Each structure stands twice: as structure tokens, then as C-alpha cells.
């Protein structure tokens, strides 16, 4: 079946891209060949003087290259060939004797934007769903169908660097300002305008592209300026993500060559770089993570078809504190549901409403919400000190104080007011859901929803059914979490669930390292070098030392001596150190920002900071504490699939995405070696490093967490 439909308006041929059997258009070799054939035919068609490319899909122009194709590549040569084929296709479009106009409505990403870049003229709709970008960097790649070369030629070096190195998407307004598109029109007149432009171009019209000013000329168009800009970009990359990701460096290199030695040579190095990057472990892992996240979006954590969602239109939130109000604000922002916020007294409710609105206000300030959207959305949040407005709630999330008695009381009160099949979710990080549900009249409609703080920024949500949870409440919680913009994993009702389970031994180990006299900044540095966004000590400060201590004690009680907390946490709590929130933690804080390590800590702990330590050993202890626990929890079925465990670690604690998650890391290191290291650490540091039974078993049988080594 053909992916293209041809329409004619006078001398203009309109190519409608409409990939069969798919809701979006993607670029693959097969599509490419068909497109080239079509261009060839039109080139010899005397009735045609110009061409418009548009999409027949709703809200998508072209979503990008088919990533399945990338994943099938096995050699650098194959990958380079794929890149060169793409480049050739784009070159055909660029060289077309009949002018080609891109009529863009909806997302125009990656290969889609590269195609648009090869056109003579780009017209985009003003619709908010029209977004343009080259997100390849997020897969550890660079635009490989000529984009890395054509983008700077169109928008200038700095704008091109920004788009390529961040992978961010821009709306059509911004695209027009930087020169990425030539004009922006309402959707209703897109094809008419594109046709008219095509006719004019066929008649010899040369659209004028406005200059970008003197400073832009200096920086983008003079050798000295370009050297400065490229050097600066390199420094920024190094500062932001270190040396763990090769793609940004390769992108800068291609941009340099393309600029110094021309398009032809630029395209050659672009294909070379693309091919080599596609075969790196980093890119492989990032592509796997991409597939895993995509698969999770369709997986409700229960067998497909086993139940039905209760579509949430009205949300109740009990507890107007930091957590409850953040949940309320995020729910309104992302899912536009009505939120009724309840607390014991109205002043607390008022503060909660204000905090929830703050989530919206931040978006208003960043111009991601208009004033009118803001007004409409904030009107969705109301508050009360009684249970009025809860009777028709589809879902109620309680986020009251972490104490079993209080939570049970809330569940009891709620059951008296909500409909019998409304879902009650409890937000807890330490209390088993089964215990909260134990006294309930309808325990089957109770599930756990473990949000991470700050809710509006943390991308993960753990949904926790207890033993007696019915299926529908789980689906309802998972789907609503997704509407709140979260990546959702369904995890077992065991202490710490998944994320805190694997995090606790890691944070404990950081405490033991401090006890051994390793300086905190060294501990943090080792892990940020390994790819974590923050190190464990700084993370403790962020989580809050009271919260961490309480969680640590719960875990210790549940799992015994393996989870014995470092004595340091208690010492700090006794010294009224709560972390960032009271400005006193391991680090010092100035205006809420992290400052230098607090020199008082060494005295408090009573050890001298050492300088003679082995960084590899430090890393080994931290990483293996987490990996060992992950294997143990996985074998207990805390998460259903290694995929869920990996995604949970990446989105929940910032586990380095390019390492694919702890289960991928275990496979990468090899179980035999992991067990060997654990045995050694056990001798050196203690029983807590006793290798998980499942690892010992896997080391014997040679089994892997991802048996086919495979992509999924």
C-alpha cells in the first residue's frame, strides 16, 4: 500500500503523506524509496511546476525516523548506509528543479524536520500541537539525514547548536523567530497558502529571509565568532553531562567540519558519526529506554482487558500539605480535572490552594500557559474543611501525615462520603497499603499511589495494589497517573516498594563511607561522574534527613540487619539537621541553593577526612549495594519485569539512563563478576554485601535479566 496520495491544484502537486496502518508518519527506507520515485515522476510531469508536501494525519506532520530501524542495525557500516540513504533522499528534495514546499501541521521531528529543511520553503500552522525539533540526541545520536549540516545553514550556528544538543522542541512562533520556518498560518488555510507559495516559487519568486543582526553575524558568520561559540558549547556539554555521552561532542565536531570544509564533507562526517554513535552502548541503552517507556505507556500493570478504567473527572485530595497540594496542582495542570482539596482547617486549605496554584503560576511565568488558561485552570481547584464536594469524586488521593492510624481514619471517613466504586488511593512511602486497607469496608477499591517530591517535576509514579485490590482501581490509578504526566510502574506491596527499596542500601552505604572518613563531596562526585544527576549525600539533603531516617528505620524493621542504618543519620537528626528544607544538612545552603560541605559534619561524626582512598572502591560499594538489592527485590517479584525495575530506577532516582537501569547494568557487568565483587565486599565490609541468592543462581546458570540480550 502506498504511503503517499497525490492531489493536484493547477500546476501544484500536493503530496499527502499518509502511512498506512499507523496513526503517525515516520521515515523509513521503504518510505524513502517510494518518495524518491514519486519525485522522479513529478520531475518529468510537464503539468507540474511545483510540489507541496503535507500530512494527512491529525496533528502529525512527520514524527521522525522509524526507531525500530535503528534498533535493527548491527554494524557501523549498516548504520552509516542508513544515514547516507537518508542524506541522498534529502539531497534529491533540495536539488529538485521544481520547488518543494513543506506544509507543516503537527509534530515535525527528527527525520521529519530534516525533510522540511531540505525543502525550498517551510510553512507551519500556529496550532499548539505544531512542534519542531531534532530529538536524536536523546537517543545518543545526531540528526543523520543531513540535518546536522542543513540546520546551521538555515538558522545560524547558535540556534542549531541549541536544537541539536538539547533535542528540545519549539513551537511555530519560536520556529519563525529563529528562521526555522518561513511563515506561520492558521491550520484552516495551510494548504491554500502552501499552494499559493509553491506557485509563486515556480514563477521565480525568491523569498526574502530577514537578517539576524550584527551580533548574530559576528558569532555565527565569522571564523572567530564560530570558534568561540563552538568552544563554549563544548565546555557547556562537558560541564552538564561530563564525558558519559559521546553524541554532543560528535555533533559539535560535525558542525565544525561542515562549516570549515563545506556541505559535502560535512555530510560525510555526519554519516560517519551517526553510524558510530548508533553502535555505541550508550545509544543502545537509550533506545531501549525509549522503547521501554513507550511500552509502559500502554501497560496498565494488569493483564490487558482484565478490567476497566473509571475515567477521572473529579479528583479529591485529602491533606493540603506540601505533597497533597503539589498533587492537586499537577493534576489540574496536566489532566485539567476538578480538584477538591480537604484539610482539617481552612487556613491550611488556603495555603494548600495557593501552593497548588503555584504549580500553575510557574507555567504561566514560563509562558507555557496563557493568562486565560491559567484563570480557567486555577478555578478547577477548590478547598474545604468538611467533606462537601467529595460525593461525586471518581478518585480520592489521601496525602495526610505518614501514620497508620491517621490514614485509616481518613479512609474510614472517605468511605462514608464517596460512591461505593470510587477509587481511594493512599500516598505513602513507608506504610504497607494492605495495612491501611485492612479496616476498610471496601478494601478492594484501595490502592497505593507513591508520588515523588516535588510532584510537578518528578516523572515517576509507583502504583501499589495490595493483596485485596481489585483490577479496576489499579487501572484507574495507572491511567490517571499517566494523565498527570507520570511514567507509571505497578509495584508490589512490600516495604519501600521498588524505588526506596533499592535506594535505601545505597544511601546507607554512603553513610558508612562517611564513617570511613571519605569526604562527602568525593562520594557525591564519584556517583555524578558515573552518571547520576546528584550524589547520594546531596540526595539525602534533598529528600530530607527526617524523611530518610524514618524510611530507613521502617526498612530496617522490615528486612533486618542488611538494612542497619548508618549511625550518622541519627547524629544529624539529633543536631536538628533536616537537609535543604531547613538549610542545615550535610551541605550548607544559601538561599535554598547548595553551598560547600558543612565542616561541622566531620566533627559531628568524629572521623578525620581521608585523602588516601580509592575512588573505584567507593563507587563499587555504592553501586553494588544498589544492584544487589535490586536483584533481591526483583526475585521477590516487587516489580513484574526487569523493564519496570530499570525504568523505575531511571525516572525515580535518576539512575544514569545511558546505563539502562540496574538490571541492564547487572547484565552488562555480568553476574559472575558481580557475585565475585560482592563476595569480596562481604569480606571487606560486612554481611550486608552477601550476594542475593538469585545472583548466585544466575552466576551458576549463566542466566541474564534480559535473556535475549534483547532490545525489549
Amino acid at each position, binding site marked *: 500500500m502506498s504511503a503517499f496520495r497525490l492531489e493536484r491544484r493547477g500546476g501544484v502537486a500536493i503530496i499527502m503523506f499518509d502511512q498506512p496502518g499507523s496513526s503517525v508518519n515516520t521515515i523509513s527506507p521503504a518510505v524513502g524509496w517510494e518518495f524518491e520515485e514519486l519525485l522522479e515522476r513529478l520531475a518529468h510531469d510537464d503539468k507540474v511546476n511545483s510540489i507541496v508536501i503535507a500530512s494527512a494525519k491529525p496533528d502529525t506532520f512527520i514524527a521522525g525516523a522509524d526507531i525500530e530501524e535503528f534498533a535493527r542495525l548491527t554494524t557501523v557500516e549498516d548504520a552509516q548506509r542508513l544515514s547516507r540513504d537518508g542524506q541522498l533522499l534529502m539531497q534529491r528534495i533540495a536539488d529538485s528543479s521544481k520547488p518543494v514546499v513543506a506544509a507543516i501541521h503537527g509534530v515535525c521531528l527528527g527525520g521529519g524536520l530534516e525533510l522540511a529543511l531540505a525543502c525550498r520553503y517551510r510553512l507551519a500552522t500556529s496550532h499548539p500541537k505544531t512542534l519542531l525539533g531534532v530529538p536524536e540526541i536523546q537517543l545518543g545520536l545526531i540528526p543523520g539525514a543531513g540535518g546536522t549540516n542543513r540546520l546551521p545553514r538555515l538558522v545560524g550556528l547558535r540556534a542549531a547548536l541549541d536544537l541539536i544538543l538539547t533535542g528540545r522542541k519549539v513551537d511555530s512562533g519560536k520556529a519563525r523567530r529563529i528562521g526555522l520556518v518561513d511563515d506561520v498560518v492558521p491550520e484552516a488555510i495551510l494548504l491554500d497558502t502552501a499552494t499559493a507559495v509553491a506557485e509563486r516559487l515556480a514563477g521565480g519568486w525568491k523569498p526574502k529571509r530577514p537578517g539576524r543582526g550584527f551580533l548574530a553575524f559576528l558569532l555565527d558568520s565569522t571564523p572567530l565568532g564560530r570558534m568561540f561559540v563552538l568552544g563554549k558549547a563544548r565546555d557547556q556539554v562537558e560541564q552538564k553531562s561530563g564525558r558519559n555521552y559521546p553524541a554532543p561532542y560528535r555533533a559539535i565536531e560535525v558542525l565544525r567540519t561542515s562549516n570549515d570544509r563545506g556541505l559535502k564533507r560535512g555530510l560525510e562526517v555526519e554519516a560517519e558519526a551517526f553510524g558510530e554513535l548508533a553502535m555505541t552502548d550508550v545509544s543502545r541503552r537509550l533506545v531501549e529506554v525509549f522503547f521501554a517507556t513507550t511500552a509502559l505507556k500502554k501497560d496498565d500493570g494488569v493483564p490487558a482487558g482484565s478490567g476497566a478504567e473509571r475515567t477521572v473527572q473529579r479528583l479529591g485530595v485529602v491533606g493540603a500539605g506540601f505533597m497533597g497540594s503539589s498533587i492537586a496542582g499537577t493534576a489540574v495542570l496536566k489532566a485539567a480535572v476538578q480538584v477538591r482539596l480537604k484539610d482539617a482547617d*481552612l*487556613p491550611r486549605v*488556603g495555603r494548600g490552594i495557593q501552593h497548588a496554584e503555584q504549580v500553575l503560576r510557574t507555567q504561566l511565568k514560563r509562558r507555557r500557559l496563557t493568562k486565560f488558561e491559567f484563570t480557567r485552570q486555577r478555578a*478547577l481547584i477548590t478547598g474545604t474543611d468538611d467533606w462537601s*464536594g467529595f*460525593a461525586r469524586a471518581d478518585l480520592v488521593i489521601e496525602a495526610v501525615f505518614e501514620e497508620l492510624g491517621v490514614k485509616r481514619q481518613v479512609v474510614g471517613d472517605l468511605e462514608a462520603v464517596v460512591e461505593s466504586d470510587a477509587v481511594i488511593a493512599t500516598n505513602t512511602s513507608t506504610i504497607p497499603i494492605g495495612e491501611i486497607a485492612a479496616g476498610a469496608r471496601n478494601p478492594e477499591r484501595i490502592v497505593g499511589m507513591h508520588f515523588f517530591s516535588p510532584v510537578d517535576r518528578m516523572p515517576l509514579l509507583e502504583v501499589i495494589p495490595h493483596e485485596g485490590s481489585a483490577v479496576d482501581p489499579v487501572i484507574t490509578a495507572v491511567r490517571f497517573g499517566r494523565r498527570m504526566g507520570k511514567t507509571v510502574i505497578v509495584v508490589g506491596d512490600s516495604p519501600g516498594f521498588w524505588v526506596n527499596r533499592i535506594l535505601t542500601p545505597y544511601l546507607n552505604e554512603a553513610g558508612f563511607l562517611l564513617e570511613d572518613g571519605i569526604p562527602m563531596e568525593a562520594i557525591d562526585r564519584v556517583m555524578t561522574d558515573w552518571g547520576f544527576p546528584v550524589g547520594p549525600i546531596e540526595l539525602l539533603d534533598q529528600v530530607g534527613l527526617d524523611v530518610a531516617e524514618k524510611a530507613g528505620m521502617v526498612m530496617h524493621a522490615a528486612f533486618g540487619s542488611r538494612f542497619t542504618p548508618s549511625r550518622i543519620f541519627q547524629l544529624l537528626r539529633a543536631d536538628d539537621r533536616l537537609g535543604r528544607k531547613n538549610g542545615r544538612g550535610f551541605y550548607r545552603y544559601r538561599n535554598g541553593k547548595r553551598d560547600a560541605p558543612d565542616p561541622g559534619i566531620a566533627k559531628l561524626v568524629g572521623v578525620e577526612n581521608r585523602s588516601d582512598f580509592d575512588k573505584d572502591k567507593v563507587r563499587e560499594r555504592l553501586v553494588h549495594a544498589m544492584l544487589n538489592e535490586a536483584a533481591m527485590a526483583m526475585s521477590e517479584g516487587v516489580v513484574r519485569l526487569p523493564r519496570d525495575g530499570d525504568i523505575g530506577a531511571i525516572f525515580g532516582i535518576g539512575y544514569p539512563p545511558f546505563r539502562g537501569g540496574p538490571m541492564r547494568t547487572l547484565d552488562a557487568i555480568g553476574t559472575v563478576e558481580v557475585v565475585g565483587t560482592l563476595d569480596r565486599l562481604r569480606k571487606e565490609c560486612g554481611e550486608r554485601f552477601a550476594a542475593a541468592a538469585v545472583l548466585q543462581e544466575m552466576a551458576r546458570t549463566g542466566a541474564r535479566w534480559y535473556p535475549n540480550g534483547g532490545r525489549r
Partner: protein
Amino acid sequence: MPIDPAGRRAVVIAGLRTPFAKAGTVFRDNTASELARHCTRELLYRTELAGDQVSEVIYGQVVPSPLVPNVAREVALLPQFPKTIPAYTLNRACASSAQAVANAADQIHAGRAEVVLAGGVEMLSDVPILFSRKFARVLQAAARAKSLGQRIGAFSSLRPRDFKPVAPAIAEPSTGMTMGDSAEKMAKENGISRIEQDEYALMSHQRAAAADRDGRLAAEIAPWFTGAGNDTVVRSDNLIRPDTSIEALSRLKPVFDRRHGSVTAGNSSPLTDGAATVLMMSEEKAASLGYKPLVAVRSHAVAAVDPGWQLLMGPAYAVPMALERAGLTWNDIGVFEIHEAFAAQVLSNVQAWGSAEWADRLGLSGPVGEVDWDRTNLMGGSIALGHPFAATGARLVTTLAHLMVERGEQFGLVSICAQGGMGFAMILENVQ
């Protein structure tokens, strides 16, 4: 025209208002639409009503903002509603939200609506301030000017006095007399003494203060969040003076006639911000949704007098009309709510209702009725609570409905005097 008791009846399910606040205080930085939306939205949640059940929104506003001429539509565009609910804003002066309730009842009675939100709002902290007509003309000319020269030229004719802004006054356009002037006139012509007025005002404050203390007022108020931390909660009206006394009231100087007058700030209703909404349904709809209505609308009437005569005497005509339409007499009524624009006005109306001479004038066989103060304005009135013009009617309907149910009275009456010489009356019937 008594309403056919076998026909469709319009019933009141519940009512809710914002706190009433002296203009320029609590709501200084807010808009009318915010107040109207706040109490309507909270009413929706307290009644657990689904937004898509609402067929129409009717709202009153006497001094609308030129930026939001149809505040009713802004209420209907709350995100809790579908965007497809029609809405209009009306102006029957101080009877506006009572008129909104009456119109809602008529719509329901005629079978054109099932669920209507009726209410009113006044935001006297945000009255439009106008430029002089001349300045406005110059601005328009400047906007049309084709050259800089023309534009400057347009401004050259202005004199300093033309820049003086014009604030709207509460004066009758047809006579130039303010409300206060009219109240003075009525006090003098009807022989209402200063002490009678002050005693009346004292009763209003004392009754309001009692209703505030025992929570009867709070039950009708949607708490308002304000302050830097949004944690200052306003849940009562800020104009009630629980500690005022006859001595304090009698010390006040007359405002409108300094030498021979008796109308003071103490025995008049103050300039107030506030909004109030009433949820109305057809009796059948209420039953099918499982609501227990408070009262039904039995009849309503509106009359007008020559504004140059006694401006606030409209109720003297409207009340007998409403009684006749209801097929009832004064003595059938168990509870009364009379809007208190001025003590002098209330006492003048009362005088007329009780007078044989007035009955003659209307062609009635005897006086309309004697007011029993133990059945009238039991929770205080506009003098103590404040009078956001278009919100007062909905407040009176809500309070009256609650009092009728609480006291088990079969019939209740609302009486409102309004600018322009108009009077409004409505009779409610207990359906519980």
C-alpha cells in the same frame, strides 16, 4: 394570576453567598466576576450538583464593569460547567437578584428550564471611573488622526478641568436626587423620627450579630481565602457592629440634610461588595436528582412609582399585588424579609401597609397588614449586613427559605425597594 398549584413548580434547593464586605476592604483587589464565580462554584460543590445539569445562569448586576458587561456568562464559563450554558445579566436595580430568582422560576414554570442558577453581584470597590465627555471625544479623535499633527491638534482643545474623572453617583437620572435625599424626603413627609430610625438600625445590628454568633449566617456564606499566604479566611460580614448602641447611633450627624435631616450613615445601608447565588429546579427534577427542596416560588410582583414622589415606596404597591397573585392575605405569611435601604424607607413602607388611607388609595377593602417584628428580618437586614445592590435579593431569598424551614412556616414574603421608584415582592411556600 396565582400560580397553578397542580402545574410545574419552581423550587429553591439552596443558596450561598460570599461574605458581604464594606467596599474597599476585603475585596478591594477583586472583580465582580471573581465573587460571583466563587460563591456559585462553592454552591455547586456543597449541593454535589454535576455542572452539566444546569440549563441556565441568570445573574443581576447594577453597576457592571465595562470590561465584563455580562457577568452571568463568566459564571457559566466556570470550568465546572460545560461551555454551552446560556446566561444573561439583568438590572432591576436593588431587586436584581430577586428578579433573577423570579425569572428563573418563570423559566422553570413554563417548562423552558429544569435547573437554573440565579443570583447577583455588586463590586463597589471596582466601579467604572469615567473621563469627561469632552476628553473622551478628544481621545476618539486622536485615535482616528492620520498624522502626528492632527493627533497633537486633537489634544490642544483640552483644559485642565477636562481631565477630572467622573465617578458615578447614586442619583436618579430623572430627578438628580440621591437615594439619601429621597430617604430624607420620605422621613419628613411620613413623619419618621430620628430615634425611630436609630432604634430600627440598632435592632438590625443586634439581630445580625446574634445570627453571626450562632452560625446561622455562616451557613449561608462560602468562606473567602485572602492574604499573602492565602490563609486568612473570611467567613462573616464585616459591617455588623455587635457593640453598637442607641447612644452611638444618635451621635452620628445627618449626611444628606445636615441641618434638618435625620438620615445618618448609621441608619442607612452602606456601600458593600458581595455576591449571592440560589440554586433553583423544577420540583420534578429535584425529586429525580434526589434533592429535598426548601421552598417553592408562589408568586412575585413588581411595581413602580413616580421617582419624584417617594422614591422608595414601590413595595407598598408590590406587596399587595404579590399577595393577590398568590391568593393569600398578609396574615397567611409567617416570616418576612424586608430589604433595608434606609430605616426611614422600611418604616415608611410599614406605615403604608398598615394604613387605611393607603388601602383606600389602592382600592383595597382594608389595610394590607400590620408588621409583626417577631416575624420580620429575624437575622438582621441590609443596614447591618451591608447591601451589595444586586446580591441582596438572593440573600433575602436564601435567608427567608432557611427561616421558613427552621420555623415550620408555610408562607414567607420578600419585599425590596429599588432605584427608579420600583418595588419588588415575592411569596415563597414551604415544601418540606
